[in-house]
């Protein structure tokens, strides 16, 4: 008889085995058939099968065999095998054959089986599969091109199985999931298996063998797009960074790896990598000139990371821009990036309509790239940069948000210093807070941008390397702090408040308010003026009748008073006195102030002062008079240190918001405080005097003052103040009228371009909902409420300013609560009747 062709022979043998396994009950038969199957996998000389047979088995029968085993997992003979036999013969088949086929069969089995011992068996085989490095074997087999030329579908499935293994097992095993299938463990393992495959690739390349990294790249891409770039690059990035330091083969392998990542996954790979590497040098070594050769990578690195997204740490910006600047071929991209950054920064519409965080991000990027520019390149870009600087600064300084103004100042300063315009540079005054300092720090290169340790004997494991650096860092810290420790001992004492330590003056302060007035009007003596200013508030409060005689006159003088002698705490002293006057003699003074607010020839600052004084006075009036009210007589203790409240419009808003919070909480908390003693509200009867005059003239632009035009700073503050008046008028009979008028007023400006105005509007709406009786709200504002709701929902969703969004949400909540209460009350009433 002619010997059979190897494929037939194998098929016959495998069929024979299957038959035995499915029918026989004899353990020996079973064992011998399993051994026969094993023999097709055995390599080496003593193998019972020829290499042709083995190849044929691997190609055509291995998957079938495993599927057969899995489907017969309930067979009677399986429990009959001893543990050693089972491990050797049954488990072994899964662990020794082509890994991709084994993995597919295992995953298929796991997803089909219900919880049972059989499933446990498959799970333990899968665990072994992972632990024995079969993933690396799988990846490596694809690198070597020895894997069967598979269909795209098969490859896609395989990738999906590899990447989604934790999800598949978790779905099947629920709480009984194994430790090594947890995402953190699994992806770390996968990352090191990929590294192993890459290392073997490097070795093979050195030995002159061709390899393909397509499959590894695809795996990497797929892992990253599924959101697991963090754990993967935490392992891979430090290692790649170390390996590529001196080894050209490693560098080529890395470049190839990234080049082969499919376009649709490129972005997530790059963003993951750029966050994980330690600095621009490492990034450059790993990525190479990918940014030039790959369009997608170029878009991600030069555009998306810088201009579209803004969630990354500053280190990412340093890495990206440092990377672009580090190579001659990449430098044109840096210049291109700088152009688009400067355009983005200077764009007045962006200043108004993009979130503040993004503007900060763009500013940082701009400063970083300007720092990286060479002088020659700078010359080339000078005119553009200058234009950007001037236009951008104008739109930043126009903004009513303090942080944006600061940003404009810092960037302007840095740009002008860098460009060296006729040896002059800009200098602004701004607070050195965390944000401005961080921006300023962009202009100074970080020394030792790459903290990784120089690897000893070629390769250090990433873990060791990181340990080493932390040790270095801590020992440096220690040595740094040691010599100082002796000198620091003064710091063990916290200083007391020393603000009262003022220079002593020889003059005695005036004792009558009229004297103060005289001095304010006519005196040129700075000492007397200062003393009068310091005692004025106390005198107003001490002698109410005297104060009423001259209240308007004194208010007028104070409103026009300038700090000619740079008296410390001038603004707050003046303000406190005006507030005291308003409180003491409410109606005439409010009348005067509200009229003056819309008159000609006042500076914006004075108008803001008026609003501030009215707001503080209203606040004070609305507070119940308590017996032990802190005596306002004399100087506020820390006059020179308190910032003038007018500089910070947020403060009373915060106060009120805190009140809103406490109010909303109280509904659920129940009464925690003893009921307060009833005292008359001094504000309620006069609320209208504060409120309505300010509403009357807003739409009449004057030569010097255009509320609805350029002066939106005042508009924002005005609306805030009106909102505050509204809020304080809670429970006052006039509140309903005020609320209606206020809603009408703010309706016109609800989509104002300036976010401060929008915040004010939302604040005012909030306070209307808080203060208006819910019945009036529903009955009187019936039609408006629907539109208001739609508008609020719109703002809550789409406003670029975070505060606006929050306030809109708060308003919605308040509105709903108020309506619900009203409806319930109505129901209760109708039930009763």
């Amino acid at each position, binding site marked *: 008889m002619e010997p059979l062709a190897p494929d037939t022979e194998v098929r016959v043998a495998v069929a024979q085995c299957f038959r035995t396994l499915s029918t026989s009950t004899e353990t020996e038969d079973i064992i011998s058939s399993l051994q026969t199957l094993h023999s097709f996998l055995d390599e080496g000389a003593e193998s019972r099968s020829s290499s042709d047979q083995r190849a044929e088995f691997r190609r055509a029968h291995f998957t079938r065999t495993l599927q057969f085993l899995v489907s017969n997992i309930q067979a009677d003979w399986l429990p009959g095998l001893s543990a050693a036999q089972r491990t050797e013969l049954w488990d072994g088949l899964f662990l020794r054959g082509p890994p991709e086929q084994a993995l597919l069969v295992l995953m298929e089995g796991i997803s089909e089986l219900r919880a049972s011992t059989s499933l446990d068996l498959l799970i333990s085989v899968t665990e072994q599969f992972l632990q024995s490095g079969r993933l690396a074997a799988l990846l490596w087999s694809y690198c070597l091109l020895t894997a069967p030329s598979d269909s795209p579908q098969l490859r896609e499935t395989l990738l999906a199985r590899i990447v989604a293994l934790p999800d598949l097992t978790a779905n099947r095993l629920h709480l009984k999931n194994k430790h090594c299938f947890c995402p953190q463990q699994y992806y770390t393992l996968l990352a090191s298996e990929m590294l192993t495959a890459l290392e073997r690739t490097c070795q093979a390349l050195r030995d002159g063998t061709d390899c393909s990294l397509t499959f590894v790249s695809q795996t990497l891409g797929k892992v990253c797009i599924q959101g697991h770039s963090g754990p993967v690059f935490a392992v891979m990035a430090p290692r790649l960074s170390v390996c590529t330091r001196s080894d050209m083969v490693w560098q080529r392998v890395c470049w190839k790896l990234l080049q082969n990542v499919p376009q649709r996954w490129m972005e997530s790979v790059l963003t993951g990598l750029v966050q994980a590497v330690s600095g621009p040098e490492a990034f450059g070594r790993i990525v190479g000139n990918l940014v030039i050769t790959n369009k997608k990578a170029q878009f991600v690195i030069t555009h998306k990371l810088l201009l579209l997204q803004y969630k990354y740490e500053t280190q990412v910006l340093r890495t990206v821009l440092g990377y672009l600047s580090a190579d001659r071929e990449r430098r044109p991209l840096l210049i291109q990036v700088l152009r688009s950054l400067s355009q983005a920064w200077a764009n007045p519409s962006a200043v108004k309509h993009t979130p503040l965080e993004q503007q900060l991000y763009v500013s940082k990027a701009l400063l970083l790239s300007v720092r990286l520019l060479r002088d020659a390149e700078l010359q080339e870009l000078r005119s553009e940069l200058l234009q950007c600087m001037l236009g951008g600064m104008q739109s930043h300084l126009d903004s009513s948000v303090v942080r944006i103004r600061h940003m404009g100042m810092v960037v302007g300063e840095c740009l002008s210093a860098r460009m060296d315009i006729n040896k002059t540079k800009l200098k602004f005054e701004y607070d050195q807070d965390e944000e401005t300092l961080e921006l300023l720090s962009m202009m100074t290169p970080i020394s030792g941008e790459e903290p990784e340790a120089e690897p000893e004997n070629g390769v250090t494991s990433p873990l060791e390397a990181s340990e080493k650096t932390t040790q270095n860092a801590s020992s440096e810290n220690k040595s740094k702090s040691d010599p100082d420790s*002796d*000198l620091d*001992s*003064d*710091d*063990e*004492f*916290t*200083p*007391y*408040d*020393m*603000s*009262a*330590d*003022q*220079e*002593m003056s020889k003059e005695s302060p005036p004792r009558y308010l009229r004297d103060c007035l005289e001095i304010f009007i006519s005196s040129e003596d700075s000492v007397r003026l200062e003393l009068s200013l310091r005692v004025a508030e106390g005198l107003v409060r001490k002698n109410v009748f005297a104060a009423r005689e001259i209240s308007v006159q004194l208010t007028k003088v104070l409103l026009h008073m300038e700090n000619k002698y740079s008296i410390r705490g001038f603004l707050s002293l003046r303000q406190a006195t005006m507030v005291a006057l308003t409180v003491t003699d409410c109606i005439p003074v409010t009348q005067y102030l509200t009229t003056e607010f819309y008159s000609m020839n006042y500076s914006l600052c004075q108008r803001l002062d008026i609003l501030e004084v009215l707001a503080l006075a209203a606040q004070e009036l609305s507070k119940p008079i308590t017996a032990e009210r802190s005596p306002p007589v004399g100087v506020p203790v*820390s006059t020179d*240190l*308190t910032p003038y409240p007018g500089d910070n419009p947020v403060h009373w808003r915060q106060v009120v918001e805190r009140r809103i919070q406490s109010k909303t909480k109280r509904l659920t908390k129940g009464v925690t405080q003893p009921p307060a003693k009833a005292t008359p509200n001094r504000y309620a009867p006069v609320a209208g005097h504060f409120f309505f005059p300010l509403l009357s003239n807003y739409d009449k632009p004057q030569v010097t003052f255009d509320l609805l035009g350029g002066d939106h700073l005042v508009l924002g503050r005005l609306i805030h103040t009106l909102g505050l008046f509204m809020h304080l008028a809670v429970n006052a009979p006039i509140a309903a009228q005020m609320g209606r008028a206020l809603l009408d007023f703010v309706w016109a400006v609800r989509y104002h371009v300036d976010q401060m105005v929008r915040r004010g509007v939302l604040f005012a709406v909030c306070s209307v909902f808080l203060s208006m009786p819910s019945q009036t709200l529903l009955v009187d504002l019936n039609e408006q409420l629907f539109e208001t709701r739609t508008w609020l929902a719109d703002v809550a969703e789409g406003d670029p300013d975070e505060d606006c969004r929050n306030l809109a949400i708060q308003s919605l909540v308040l509105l709903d609560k108020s309506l619900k209460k009203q409806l319930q009350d109505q129901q209760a009433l109708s039930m009763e009747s």
Partner: protein
Amino acid sequence: MHEPGMSRPAPSPIYTLRGAGAPLNTLHFSCHGGDPPLLFSGSGKGAIHMWNLNTRRAEKVVEGHSGNSVVWVNTLRGTDTLISQGRDMRVCLWDLSEGRSALLDSVWTGSVGFCQCSLLETSTGTHLLAFAGQEIEEIKIIELPSKTPVCILVPDAKLGMVMCIKLWQPDSGPGPLLLAGYEDGSLLLWDVTQRAQLSQAKANPEPVMCLTFDTESLRGVSGSSEKNLSSWRLDGQNNLQLQDSVTLVNPGVSQLSVRGDGKLLASAGWDHRVRIFGWKKLRPLAVLQYHTDLVLSVAFSDHQDPQQRLLAAGSKDQRISLWSIYNEGADTG
């Protein structure tokens, strides 16, 4: 920097002692010996009050210098012997043991100035006393109780009147050293045994009103009628080296005192305020406001329990204020 809003409010005195009836030129704590802790004060009308700090009453009043202002008081041998210096040009020794207040001895100084004496214990029972002499520039040193003259120190150059002196025994070196501040603002370091000037520095432009010296860290400060406290140190070769000065808000300092543990410096200001500084870096820590007239003297108590260590300030407004400040656990909690 601390924020103004966050810092603790300025402290207040824990109690005050009234009834001296005259400005209080000098204060001296004596909390070492048996109970109770005592505070001695010397007034502008010649009375020395011995305040019991437990009852907060004057336990004894010694009228010693025939109505002339008492400029300095101290104690020898626990609290048994009191030594006081008055503007009647006499230094008197008083026996206070067993409730007595008898005059033991007196020394005629001949000095019409305000310079306070300085006392140094050389061995048990014997002290050196330095005081300004009859001539305006001279400093005399005598031994007590024998009253043997030790030396007379007169500077080579014209420096004006002696304003303040401090006698101490350095750890290294055989004999005691003496620091003296003069009317022209100079500081001189004298070696008492050699009778030689070791070093000179122009610490202040105005007369040196007061000085204090920490023998541990070899640093000192001196104050005058202007706004600056100048600080200086001695290097290894006993050279005076001027260091950074501290600017005060208002001019004029009457007295300076370093706490026993070398952590705090207190200054008695003409602006009615006592200022507290960290001694290491002279960082301002607190301004104590209570008095309504010049503060003339400050003293830290030598109580063994650091928590009971007080600061006393005596003022021209005839009151003594006592403060508990930066005592571990006592006021920081």
